[in-house]
Protein backbone atom coordinates (compact mmCIF):
# COMPACT_ATOMS: atom_id res chain seq x y z
CA UNK A 1 0.00 0.00 0.00
CA UNK A 2 2.95 2.34 0.60
CA UNK A 3 3.81 2.72 -3.06
CA UNK A 4 1.47 5.32 -4.52
CA UNK A 5 -0.12 3.87 -7.59
CA UNK A 6 -1.00 6.16 -10.46
CA UNK A 7 -4.73 6.87 -10.29
CA UNK A 8 -6.80 5.61 -13.23
CA UNK A 9 -7.13 8.19 -15.98
CA UNK A 10 -10.92 8.17 -15.86
CA UNK A 11 -10.92 8.99 -12.16
CA UNK A 12 -8.47 11.82 -12.74
CA UNK A 13 -10.62 13.25 -15.51
CA UNK A 14 -13.76 13.09 -13.39
CA UNK A 15 -12.08 14.79 -10.44
CA UNK A 16 -10.59 17.52 -12.62
CA UNK A 17 -13.96 18.12 -14.27
CA UNK A 18 -15.83 18.51 -10.99
CA UNK A 19 -13.04 20.56 -9.43
CA UNK A 20 -13.14 22.95 -12.38
CA UNK A 21 -16.93 23.19 -12.22
CA UNK A 22 -16.63 23.93 -8.52
CA UNK A 23 -14.29 26.88 -9.00
CA UNK A 24 -15.60 27.94 -12.41
CA UNK A 25 -17.65 30.90 -11.10
CA UNK A 26 -14.48 32.21 -9.47
CA UNK A 27 -12.53 31.84 -12.69
CA UNK A 28 -15.29 33.72 -14.49
CA UNK A 29 -15.16 36.43 -11.82
CA UNK A 30 -11.41 36.95 -12.22
CA UNK A 31 -11.65 36.81 -16.00
CA UNK A 32 -14.39 39.42 -16.27
CA UNK A 33 -12.68 41.68 -13.75
CA UNK A 34 -10.24 42.47 -16.57
CA UNK A 35 -12.94 43.40 -19.10
CA UNK A 36 -14.50 46.73 -19.94
CA UNK A 37 -18.04 46.98 -18.55
CA UNK A 38 -19.39 47.16 -22.11
CA UNK A 39 -17.84 43.78 -22.92
CA UNK A 40 -19.92 42.03 -20.25
CA UNK A 41 -22.89 41.60 -22.54
CA UNK A 42 -21.21 39.53 -25.26
CA UNK A 43 -22.21 35.90 -25.68
CA UNK A 44 -18.81 34.45 -24.74
CA UNK A 45 -18.57 32.47 -21.54
CA UNK A 46 -14.93 33.26 -20.89
CA UNK A 47 -13.16 35.94 -22.85
CA UNK A 48 -9.49 36.82 -23.27
CA UNK A 49 -9.45 40.60 -22.75
CA UNK A 50 -8.32 42.68 -25.75
CA UNK A 51 -6.51 44.91 -23.31
CA UNK A 52 -6.35 44.12 -19.63
CA UNK A 53 -8.47 46.72 -17.87
CA UNK A 54 -6.30 47.42 -14.86
CA UNK A 55 -8.33 50.60 -14.55
CA UNK A 56 -11.02 48.41 -12.98
CA UNK A 57 -8.71 47.67 -10.08
CA UNK A 58 -7.76 51.31 -9.73
CA UNK A 59 -11.45 52.27 -9.69
CA UNK A 60 -12.26 49.52 -7.24
CA UNK A 61 -9.54 50.82 -4.97
CA UNK A 62 -10.78 54.39 -5.02
CA UNK A 63 -14.59 54.10 -5.27
CA UNK A 64 -14.63 51.09 -2.98
CA UNK A 65 -12.48 52.81 -0.30
CA UNK A 66 -10.42 49.63 -0.25
CA UNK A 67 -7.34 50.96 1.62
CA UNK A 68 -9.37 52.44 4.46
CA UNK A 69 -11.64 49.42 4.86
CA UNK A 70 -8.66 47.11 4.63
CA UNK A 71 -7.01 48.82 7.60
CA UNK A 72 -10.29 48.62 9.58
CA UNK A 73 -10.75 44.95 8.78
CA UNK A 74 -7.17 44.21 9.67
CA UNK A 75 -7.33 46.03 12.99
CA UNK A 76 -10.66 44.54 14.07
CA UNK A 77 -9.73 41.00 13.03
CA UNK A 78 -6.27 41.19 14.60
CA UNK A 79 -7.57 42.29 18.00
CA UNK A 80 -10.32 39.67 17.85
CA UNK A 81 -8.09 36.71 17.08
CA UNK A 82 -5.40 37.64 19.58
CA UNK A 83 -7.83 38.18 22.45
CA UNK A 84 -9.87 35.10 21.52
CA UNK A 85 -6.71 32.98 21.51
CA UNK A 86 -5.56 34.29 24.91
CA UNK A 87 -9.00 33.83 26.49
CA UNK A 88 -9.46 30.36 25.10
CA UNK A 89 -5.99 29.35 26.33
CA UNK A 90 -6.85 30.60 29.82
CA UNK A 91 -10.28 29.00 29.84
CA UNK A 92 -9.04 25.81 28.27
CA UNK A 93 -6.44 25.54 31.01
CA UNK A 94 -8.96 26.18 33.75
CA UNK A 95 -11.35 23.61 32.25
CA UNK A 96 -8.77 20.82 31.89
CA UNK A 97 -6.36 21.34 34.79
CA UNK A 98 -7.96 23.33 37.55
CA UNK A 99 -10.26 21.73 40.07
CA UNK A 100 -13.44 23.65 40.78
CA UNK A 101 -17.05 22.86 41.45
CA UNK A 102 -18.72 24.94 38.74
CA UNK A 103 -16.43 23.64 35.99
CA UNK A 104 -19.02 21.44 34.29
CA UNK A 105 -21.66 24.13 34.42
CA UNK A 106 -19.38 26.83 33.02
CA UNK A 107 -18.12 24.59 30.23
CA UNK A 108 -21.67 23.61 29.31
CA UNK A 109 -22.69 27.25 29.23
CA UNK A 110 -19.88 28.19 26.86
CA UNK A 111 -20.65 25.22 24.62
CA UNK A 112 -24.25 26.45 24.43
CA UNK A 113 -22.79 29.31 22.41
CA UNK A 114 -22.29 26.94 19.49
CA UNK A 115 -26.03 26.38 19.31
CA UNK A 116 -27.14 30.00 19.66
CA UNK A 117 -27.39 31.61 16.22
CA UNK A 118 -25.48 34.89 16.00
CA UNK A 119 -28.48 36.38 14.23
CA UNK A 120 -30.57 36.05 17.36
CA UNK A 121 -28.23 38.48 19.13
CA UNK A 122 -28.35 41.13 16.40
CA UNK A 123 -31.45 42.96 17.61
CA UNK A 124 -30.76 43.02 21.37
CA UNK A 125 -27.08 43.83 20.85
CA UNK A 126 -28.08 46.71 18.60
CA UNK A 127 -30.16 48.16 21.45
CA UNK A 128 -27.47 47.33 24.00
CA UNK A 129 -24.73 49.07 22.02
CA UNK A 130 -27.03 51.97 21.35
CA UNK A 131 -27.66 52.40 25.08
CA UNK A 132 -24.03 52.20 26.15
CA UNK A 133 -22.81 54.37 23.26
CA UNK A 134 -20.85 51.67 21.46
CA UNK A 135 -22.80 51.76 18.24
CA UNK A 136 -20.56 52.59 15.29
CA UNK A 137 -17.46 51.80 17.36
CA UNK A 138 -14.93 49.04 16.57
CA UNK A 139 -15.66 47.47 19.96
CA UNK A 140 -19.23 46.79 18.82
CA UNK A 141 -17.72 44.23 16.46
CA UNK A 142 -14.73 43.04 18.49
CA UNK A 143 -16.76 42.14 21.59
CA UNK A 144 -19.31 39.87 19.90
CA UNK A 145 -16.67 38.47 17.55
CA UNK A 146 -14.51 37.42 20.50
CA UNK A 147 -17.52 36.11 22.42
CA UNK A 148 -18.69 33.97 19.51
CA UNK A 149 -15.15 32.70 18.90
CA UNK A 150 -14.87 31.35 22.42
CA UNK A 151 -17.00 28.17 22.24
CA UNK A 152 -15.20 26.55 19.31
CA UNK A 153 -11.78 27.93 20.31
CA UNK A 154 -12.12 26.69 23.88
CA UNK A 155 -13.29 23.34 22.58
CA UNK A 156 -10.23 22.95 20.38
CA UNK A 157 -7.99 24.08 23.22
CA UNK A 158 -9.44 21.69 25.83
CA UNK A 159 -9.25 18.86 23.31
CA UNK A 160 -5.59 19.61 22.70
CA UNK A 161 -4.70 20.12 26.37
CA UNK A 162 -6.20 16.77 27.30
CA UNK A 163 -3.59 15.09 25.12
CA UNK A 164 -0.71 16.96 26.81
CA UNK A 165 0.86 14.95 29.65
CA UNK A 166 0.81 16.72 33.00
CA UNK A 167 4.23 15.55 34.12
CA UNK A 168 6.04 18.59 32.70
CA UNK A 169 3.78 20.96 34.59
CA UNK A 170 4.15 18.92 37.77
CA UNK A 171 7.92 19.15 37.70
CA UNK A 172 7.73 22.89 36.95
CA UNK A 173 5.48 23.35 39.96
CA UNK A 174 8.05 21.46 42.05
CA UNK A 175 10.58 24.06 40.92
CA UNK A 176 8.30 26.79 42.25
CA UNK A 177 6.51 27.84 39.09
CA UNK A 178 3.07 29.47 39.49
CA UNK A 179 0.06 29.15 37.20
CA UNK A 180 0.97 32.30 35.29
CA UNK A 181 4.48 30.95 34.69
CA UNK A 182 3.04 27.58 33.66
CA UNK A 183 0.81 29.23 31.09
CA UNK A 184 3.38 31.55 29.56
CA UNK A 185 6.48 29.35 29.71
CA UNK A 186 5.16 25.81 29.32
CA UNK A 187 1.57 25.65 28.10
CA UNK A 188 1.80 28.40 25.50
CA UNK A 189 4.78 26.88 23.64
CA UNK A 190 3.24 23.39 23.78
CA UNK A 191 -0.17 24.50 22.51
CA UNK A 192 1.19 26.53 19.61
CA UNK A 193 -0.32 24.19 16.97
CA UNK A 194 -3.76 24.47 18.58
CA UNK A 195 -3.39 28.25 18.85
CA UNK A 196 -2.43 28.46 15.18
CA UNK A 197 -5.53 26.48 14.23
CA UNK A 198 -7.76 28.66 16.40
CA UNK A 199 -6.30 31.87 14.95
CA UNK A 200 -6.68 30.76 11.35
CA UNK A 201 -10.26 29.61 11.83
CA UNK A 202 -11.20 32.82 13.60
CA UNK A 203 -9.45 34.84 10.93
CA UNK A 204 -11.49 33.24 8.17
CA UNK A 205 -14.80 33.65 9.96
CA UNK A 206 -14.37 37.22 11.18
CA UNK A 207 -12.48 38.66 8.26
CA UNK A 208 -15.46 37.63 6.16
CA UNK A 209 -18.15 38.64 8.66
CA UNK A 210 -20.78 40.94 7.25
CA UNK A 211 -24.12 40.88 9.06
CA UNK A 212 -22.95 42.27 12.39
CA UNK A 213 -20.76 44.84 10.69
CA UNK A 214 -23.73 45.88 8.58
CA UNK A 215 -25.90 46.21 11.68
CA UNK A 216 -23.60 47.85 14.21
CA UNK A 217 -21.60 50.20 12.01
CA UNK A 218 -23.64 53.14 10.85
CA UNK A 219 -21.06 55.57 9.50
CA UNK A 220 -18.26 55.09 7.01
CA UNK A 221 -15.46 55.46 9.54
CA UNK A 222 -14.96 51.90 10.79
CA UNK A 223 -16.49 49.89 7.97
CA UNK A 224 -14.76 46.66 7.01
CA UNK A 225 -13.69 45.26 3.68
CA UNK A 226 -16.95 43.56 2.59
CA UNK A 227 -18.51 47.02 2.42
CA UNK A 228 -16.32 47.84 -0.56
CA UNK A 229 -18.58 45.57 -2.58
CA UNK A 230 -21.71 47.16 -1.19
CA UNK A 231 -20.49 50.55 -2.37
CA UNK A 232 -21.01 49.32 -5.90
CA UNK A 233 -24.64 48.47 -5.21
CA UNK A 234 -25.76 52.07 -5.57
CA UNK A 235 -23.88 54.85 -7.24
CA UNK A 236 -21.45 52.78 -9.30
CA UNK A 237 -23.71 49.80 -9.94
CA UNK A 238 -23.24 49.91 -13.71
CA UNK A 239 -19.45 49.79 -13.41
CA UNK A 240 -19.41 45.99 -13.65
CA UNK A 241 -15.68 45.76 -14.31
CA UNK A 242 -14.74 47.57 -11.11
CA UNK A 243 -17.35 45.60 -9.21
CA UNK A 244 -15.78 42.33 -10.30
CA UNK A 245 -12.33 43.70 -9.55
CA UNK A 246 -13.28 44.61 -5.99
CA UNK A 247 -14.75 41.14 -5.42
CA UNK A 248 -11.55 39.55 -6.67
CA UNK A 249 -9.44 41.71 -4.40
CA UNK A 250 -11.51 40.86 -1.34
CA UNK A 251 -11.42 37.15 -2.07
CA UNK A 252 -7.63 37.15 -2.41
CA UNK A 253 -6.38 37.61 1.19
CA UNK A 254 -8.46 34.72 2.57
CA UNK A 255 -7.54 32.55 -0.37
CA UNK A 256 -3.84 33.17 0.20
CA UNK A 257 -4.08 32.52 3.94
CA UNK A 258 -5.98 29.34 3.19
CA UNK A 259 -3.44 28.12 0.65
CA UNK A 260 -0.62 28.84 3.10
CA UNK A 261 -2.28 27.10 6.05
CA UNK A 262 -4.44 24.43 4.40
CA UNK A 263 -3.38 21.71 6.84
CA UNK A 264 -3.99 23.70 10.03
CA UNK A 265 -7.42 24.70 8.79
CA UNK A 266 -8.40 21.20 7.84
CA UNK A 267 -7.26 19.99 11.25
CA UNK A 268 -9.16 22.74 13.06
CA UNK A 269 -12.40 22.15 11.24
CA UNK A 270 -12.41 18.42 11.72
CA UNK A 271 -11.23 18.65 15.35
CA UNK A 272 -13.95 21.18 16.14
CA UNK A 273 -16.60 19.09 14.45
CA UNK A 274 -15.72 15.76 16.00
CA UNK A 275 -15.44 17.04 19.56
CA UNK A 276 -18.64 19.05 19.24
Amino acid at each position, binding site marked *: MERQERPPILLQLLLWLVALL*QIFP*LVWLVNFSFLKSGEFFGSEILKWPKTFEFANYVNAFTYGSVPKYLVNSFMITAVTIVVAAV*FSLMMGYAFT*RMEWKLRGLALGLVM*LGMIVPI*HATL*LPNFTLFNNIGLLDHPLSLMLPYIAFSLPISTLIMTGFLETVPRSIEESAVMDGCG*VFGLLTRIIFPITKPAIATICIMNFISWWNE*FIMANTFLTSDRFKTLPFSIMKFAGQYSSN*YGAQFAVMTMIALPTLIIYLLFTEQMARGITAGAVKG
Partner: protein
Amino acid sequence: MHKLMSNRWTITWLVAPGLTLFLFMVCFPILMSVYYGTTNWTGLGEYQSVGFANYQKVLFDDPIFWRSLWNALLLLLATLLLQHPVAILFAILITRAGRLEKTFRTIFFIPAVISIVVTSKMWVSVFHPSYGVLNKVLEQLGLASLKQDWLGDPSVAIWSLIFVIMWQGFGYALLLYYAGLQGIPKDLYEAAELDGAGKVTLYTRVVVPLLSPMIRVAVIIAVTTCLKQMETVFLMTNGGPGSTTQFLGNYLYKTAFSSSLYGYGNAISVIFVIICLIITVIMNRALKKDVGQF
Protein backbone atom coordinates in the same frame (compact mmCIF):
# COMPACT_ATOMS: atom_id res chain seq x y z
CA MET B 1 -0.08 20.61 42.97
CA HIS B 2 -3.65 20.11 44.14
CA LYS B 3 -3.47 23.26 46.22
CA LEU B 4 -2.20 25.28 43.30
CA MET B 5 -4.81 23.85 40.94
CA SER B 6 -7.77 24.57 43.20
CA ASN B 7 -6.82 28.12 44.09
CA ARG B 8 -10.04 30.08 43.68
CA TRP B 9 -8.39 33.33 42.86
CA THR B 10 -6.37 31.76 40.04
CA ILE B 11 -9.46 30.08 38.63
CA THR B 12 -11.30 33.38 38.71
CA TRP B 13 -8.71 35.30 36.72
CA LEU B 14 -8.41 32.49 34.21
CA VAL B 15 -12.11 32.11 33.55
CA ALA B 16 -13.68 35.45 34.38
CA PRO B 17 -12.61 37.58 31.39
CA GLY B 18 -13.81 35.13 28.76
CA LEU B 19 -16.87 33.98 30.60
CA THR B 20 -18.00 37.52 31.45
CA LEU B 21 -17.64 38.62 27.86
CA PHE B 22 -19.50 35.54 26.69
CA LEU B 23 -22.38 36.06 29.12
CA PHE B 24 -22.53 39.74 28.29
CA MET B 25 -22.52 39.28 24.50
CA VAL B 26 -24.40 36.01 24.03
CA CYS B 27 -26.58 35.14 27.03
CA PHE B 28 -27.59 38.57 28.27
CA PRO B 29 -28.83 39.73 24.81
CA ILE B 30 -31.12 36.71 24.61
CA LEU B 31 -32.69 37.70 27.92
CA MET B 32 -33.09 41.22 26.54
CA SER B 33 -34.84 39.71 23.53
CA VAL B 34 -37.21 37.78 25.76
CA TYR B 35 -38.17 41.07 27.38
CA TYR B 36 -38.46 43.17 24.19
CA GLY B 37 -40.44 40.34 22.65
CA THR B 38 -43.23 41.14 25.08
CA THR B 39 -43.45 44.77 23.93
CA ASN B 40 -44.74 46.61 20.89
CA TRP B 41 -41.58 48.74 20.57
CA THR B 42 -40.86 50.03 17.08
CA GLY B 43 -37.23 50.73 17.90
CA LEU B 44 -37.82 54.39 18.70
CA GLY B 45 -39.76 56.20 21.40
CA GLU B 46 -42.30 54.85 23.85
CA TYR B 47 -43.58 51.32 24.04
CA GLN B 48 -46.06 49.21 26.00
CA SER B 49 -46.07 45.66 27.19
CA VAL B 50 -48.26 43.37 25.12
CA GLY B 51 -47.68 40.20 27.13
CA PHE B 52 -47.15 37.10 25.04
CA ALA B 53 -49.17 38.38 22.09
CA ASN B 54 -46.07 38.60 19.86
CA TYR B 55 -44.98 35.06 20.65
CA GLN B 56 -48.49 33.79 20.03
CA LYS B 57 -48.67 35.57 16.71
CA VAL B 58 -45.31 34.19 15.56
CA LEU B 59 -46.32 30.63 16.30
CA PHE B 60 -49.96 30.59 15.29
CA ASP B 61 -50.57 33.41 12.88
CA ASP B 62 -47.48 34.12 10.83
CA PRO B 63 -47.23 32.35 7.48
CA ILE B 64 -43.80 33.92 6.77
CA PHE B 65 -42.38 32.40 9.94
CA TRP B 66 -43.52 28.95 8.86
CA ARG B 67 -42.37 29.62 5.32
CA SER B 68 -38.92 30.40 6.71
CA LEU B 69 -38.84 27.13 8.61
CA TRP B 70 -40.10 25.29 5.55
CA ASN B 71 -37.28 26.79 3.47
CA ALA B 72 -34.75 25.67 6.09
CA LEU B 73 -36.24 22.19 5.79
CA LEU B 74 -35.99 22.25 1.98
CA LEU B 75 -32.39 23.32 2.28
CA LEU B 76 -31.73 20.56 4.79
CA LEU B 77 -33.30 17.91 2.57
CA ALA B 78 -31.28 19.07 -0.42
CA THR B 79 -28.13 19.07 1.70
CA LEU B 80 -28.70 15.59 3.11
CA LEU B 81 -29.98 13.93 -0.06
CA LEU B 82 -27.69 15.58 -2.60
CA GLN B 83 -24.72 17.33 -1.08
CA HIS B 84 -23.74 14.71 1.47
CA PRO B 85 -23.91 11.60 -0.73
CA VAL B 86 -21.91 13.42 -3.40
CA ALA B 87 -19.46 14.60 -0.74
CA ILE B 88 -18.99 11.04 0.54
CA LEU B 89 -18.45 9.78 -3.01
CA PHE B 90 -15.87 12.44 -3.77
CA ALA B 91 -14.14 12.02 -0.41
CA ILE B 92 -13.65 8.37 -1.38
CA LEU B 93 -12.54 9.24 -4.91
CA ILE B 94 -10.04 11.76 -3.58
CA THR B 95 -8.39 9.19 -1.33
CA ARG B 96 -7.73 7.16 -4.47
CA ALA B 97 -6.26 10.10 -6.40
CA GLY B 98 -2.69 9.35 -5.33
CA ARG B 99 -0.37 12.30 -5.55
CA LEU B 100 -3.23 14.63 -6.54
CA GLU B 101 -5.07 13.90 -3.30
CA LYS B 102 -4.02 17.11 -1.61
CA THR B 103 -4.56 19.27 -4.70
CA PHE B 104 -8.17 18.19 -5.07
CA ARG B 105 -8.90 18.51 -1.38
CA THR B 106 -7.59 22.06 -1.52
CA ILE B 107 -9.55 23.04 -4.63
CA PHE B 108 -12.86 21.65 -3.39
CA PHE B 109 -12.62 23.66 -0.21
CA ILE B 110 -11.82 27.01 -1.85
CA PRO B 111 -15.43 28.28 -2.09
CA ALA B 112 -15.85 27.71 1.65
CA VAL B 113 -13.10 30.17 2.60
CA ILE B 114 -14.17 33.02 0.36
CA SER B 115 -16.24 35.77 1.92
CA ILE B 116 -19.98 35.17 1.63
CA VAL B 117 -20.34 38.75 0.47
CA VAL B 118 -18.11 37.95 -2.51
CA THR B 119 -19.70 34.61 -3.34
CA SER B 120 -23.25 35.93 -2.95
CA LYS B 121 -22.68 38.95 -5.16
CA MET B 122 -20.77 36.75 -7.59
CA TRP B 123 -23.71 34.35 -7.89
CA VAL B 124 -26.11 37.23 -8.31
CA SER B 125 -23.98 38.09 -11.36
CA VAL B 126 -23.86 34.48 -12.54
CA PHE B 127 -27.67 34.36 -12.40
CA HIS B 128 -28.06 37.83 -13.93
CA PRO B 129 -30.61 37.65 -16.77
CA SER B 130 -28.64 39.82 -19.21
CA TYR B 131 -24.91 39.33 -18.57
CA GLY B 132 -24.97 36.31 -16.24
CA VAL B 133 -22.78 33.41 -17.31
CA LEU B 134 -25.39 30.76 -16.54
CA ASN B 135 -27.83 31.87 -19.23
CA LYS B 136 -24.92 32.23 -21.67
CA VAL B 137 -23.77 28.68 -20.98
CA LEU B 138 -27.30 27.36 -21.52
CA GLU B 139 -27.50 29.20 -24.81
CA GLN B 140 -24.16 27.80 -26.00
CA LEU B 141 -25.31 24.31 -25.10
CA GLY B 142 -28.45 24.78 -27.18
CA LEU B 143 -30.63 24.82 -24.10
CA ALA B 144 -31.87 28.36 -24.57
CA SER B 145 -35.37 27.29 -23.51
CA LEU B 146 -34.04 26.74 -19.98
CA LYS B 147 -32.89 30.34 -19.69
CA GLN B 148 -34.66 32.24 -16.96
CA ASP B 149 -34.61 34.91 -14.32
CA TRP B 150 -33.03 32.63 -11.74
CA LEU B 151 -33.55 34.88 -8.73
CA GLY B 152 -36.63 36.78 -9.91
CA ASP B 153 -38.98 33.89 -10.50
CA PRO B 154 -40.74 32.97 -7.22
CA SER B 155 -40.81 29.25 -7.98
CA VAL B 156 -37.15 29.07 -9.06
CA ALA B 157 -35.46 31.52 -6.67
CA ILE B 158 -35.44 29.23 -3.64
CA TRP B 159 -33.72 26.47 -5.64
CA SER B 160 -31.13 28.88 -7.01
CA LEU B 161 -30.43 29.96 -3.47
CA ILE B 162 -30.24 26.39 -2.17
CA PHE B 163 -27.84 25.56 -4.97
CA VAL B 164 -25.50 28.41 -4.02
CA ILE B 165 -25.54 27.47 -0.34
CA MET B 166 -24.78 23.84 -1.20
CA TRP B 167 -22.02 24.92 -3.55
CA GLN B 168 -20.32 26.91 -0.82
CA GLY B 169 -20.77 24.21 1.82
CA PHE B 170 -19.68 21.30 -0.35
CA GLY B 171 -15.99 21.56 0.55
CA TYR B 172 -16.86 21.55 4.21
CA ALA B 173 -18.90 18.35 4.01
CA LEU B 174 -16.20 16.79 1.85
CA LEU B 175 -13.50 17.66 4.36
CA LEU B 176 -15.46 16.09 7.23
CA TYR B 177 -15.96 12.83 5.36
CA TYR B 178 -12.38 12.86 4.16
CA ALA B 179 -11.23 13.16 7.77
CA GLY B 180 -13.58 10.32 8.66
CA LEU B 181 -12.01 8.14 5.98
CA GLN B 182 -8.55 8.86 7.36
CA GLY B 183 -9.69 7.41 10.68
CA ILE B 184 -10.47 4.02 9.15
CA PRO B 185 -7.47 1.72 9.59
CA LYS B 186 -5.75 0.77 6.32
CA ASP B 187 -5.58 -2.96 7.15
CA LEU B 188 -9.39 -3.10 7.07
CA TYR B 189 -9.28 -2.40 3.34
CA GLU B 190 -6.71 -5.15 2.87
CA ALA B 191 -8.67 -7.59 4.99
CA ALA B 192 -11.81 -6.92 2.96
CA GLU B 193 -9.88 -7.40 -0.28
CA LEU B 194 -8.44 -10.68 0.98
CA ASP B 195 -11.97 -11.80 1.76
CA GLY B 196 -12.73 -11.22 -1.89
CA ALA B 197 -14.79 -8.05 -1.60
CA GLY B 198 -14.96 -6.03 -4.81
CA LYS B 199 -14.41 -2.26 -4.78
CA VAL B 200 -18.13 -1.45 -4.67
CA THR B 201 -18.86 -3.96 -1.91
CA LEU B 202 -15.82 -2.73 -0.03
CA TYR B 203 -17.17 0.81 0.04
CA THR B 204 -20.89 0.16 0.47
CA ARG B 205 -20.59 -2.65 3.01
CA VAL B 206 -17.43 -1.77 4.91
CA VAL B 207 -16.31 1.83 4.51
CA VAL B 208 -19.60 3.75 4.54
CA PRO B 209 -20.91 1.92 7.64
CA LEU B 210 -17.62 2.72 9.37
CA LEU B 211 -18.12 6.36 8.42
CA SER B 212 -21.36 6.49 10.40
CA PRO B 213 -19.91 8.37 13.39
CA MET B 214 -18.75 11.08 11.00
CA ILE B 215 -22.05 11.01 9.11
CA ARG B 216 -23.77 11.60 12.42
CA VAL B 217 -21.58 14.62 13.17
CA ALA B 218 -22.02 16.00 9.65
CA VAL B 219 -25.81 15.62 9.85
CA ILE B 220 -25.96 17.51 13.16
CA ILE B 221 -23.83 20.29 11.69
CA ALA B 222 -25.98 20.38 8.54
CA VAL B 223 -29.20 20.75 10.54
CA THR B 224 -27.91 23.70 12.53
CA THR B 225 -26.28 25.46 9.59
CA CYS B 226 -29.43 25.11 7.48
CA LEU B 227 -31.50 26.59 10.26
CA LYS B 228 -29.01 29.42 10.81
CA GLN B 229 -28.75 30.32 7.16
CA MET B 230 -28.84 34.07 6.70
CA GLU B 231 -25.98 35.90 4.96
CA THR B 232 -26.47 34.37 1.53
CA VAL B 233 -30.19 35.06 1.67
CA PHE B 234 -29.68 38.61 2.89
CA LEU B 235 -27.23 39.41 0.13
CA MET B 236 -28.83 37.56 -2.77
CA THR B 237 -32.60 37.88 -2.44
CA ASN B 238 -33.34 39.42 0.96
CA GLY B 239 -36.12 36.86 1.22
CA GLY B 240 -37.77 37.83 -2.04
CA PRO B 241 -39.48 37.65 -4.44
CA GLY B 242 -42.35 37.97 -1.96
CA SER B 243 -41.26 35.87 0.98
CA THR B 244 -40.47 32.78 -1.06
CA THR B 245 -36.80 32.62 -0.07
CA GLN B 246 -37.16 33.83 3.51
CA PHE B 247 -35.11 32.28 6.33
CA LEU B 248 -35.53 32.92 10.05
CA GLY B 249 -32.39 35.01 10.56
CA ASN B 250 -33.18 37.26 7.65
CA TYR B 251 -36.86 37.46 8.56
CA LEU B 252 -36.27 38.70 12.09
CA TYR B 253 -33.76 41.22 10.78
CA LYS B 254 -36.13 42.53 8.16
CA THR B 255 -39.03 42.66 10.63
CA ALA B 256 -37.05 44.72 13.13
CA PHE B 257 -35.13 47.05 10.84
CA SER B 258 -37.22 47.41 7.68
CA SER B 259 -40.72 46.98 9.06
CA SER B 260 -39.87 48.71 12.38
CA LEU B 261 -41.50 45.93 14.36
CA TYR B 262 -38.63 45.69 16.82
CA GLY B 263 -40.62 43.97 19.55
CA TYR B 264 -42.03 41.42 17.16
CA GLY B 265 -38.57 40.80 15.67
CA ASN B 266 -37.25 40.00 19.13
CA ALA B 267 -40.07 37.51 19.66
CA ILE B 268 -39.01 35.73 16.45
CA SER B 269 -35.43 35.87 17.70
CA VAL B 270 -36.29 34.13 20.96
CA ILE B 271 -38.33 31.44 19.25
CA PHE B 272 -35.42 30.98 16.84
CA VAL B 273 -33.02 30.29 19.73
CA ILE B 274 -35.50 27.89 21.33
CA ILE B 275 -35.94 25.98 18.07
CA CYS B 276 -32.16 25.67 17.71
CA LEU B 277 -31.85 24.38 21.29
CA ILE B 278 -34.68 21.87 20.94
CA ILE B 279 -33.43 20.54 17.63
CA THR B 280 -29.88 20.18 18.91
CA VAL B 281 -31.05 18.24 21.94
CA ILE B 282 -33.28 15.98 19.84
CA MET B 283 -30.53 15.37 17.30
CA ASN B 284 -28.00 14.48 19.96
CA ARG B 285 -30.44 12.06 21.60
CA ALA B 286 -31.59 10.48 18.37
CA LEU B 287 -28.15 10.03 16.88
CA LYS B 288 -26.28 8.96 19.99
CA LYS B 289 -26.53 5.23 19.29
CA ASP B 290 -24.83 2.98 16.73
CA VAL B 291 -21.25 4.16 17.03
CA GLY B 292 -19.11 2.03 14.74
CA GLN B 293 -16.56 -0.24 16.38
CA PHE B 294 -13.26 -1.22 14.89
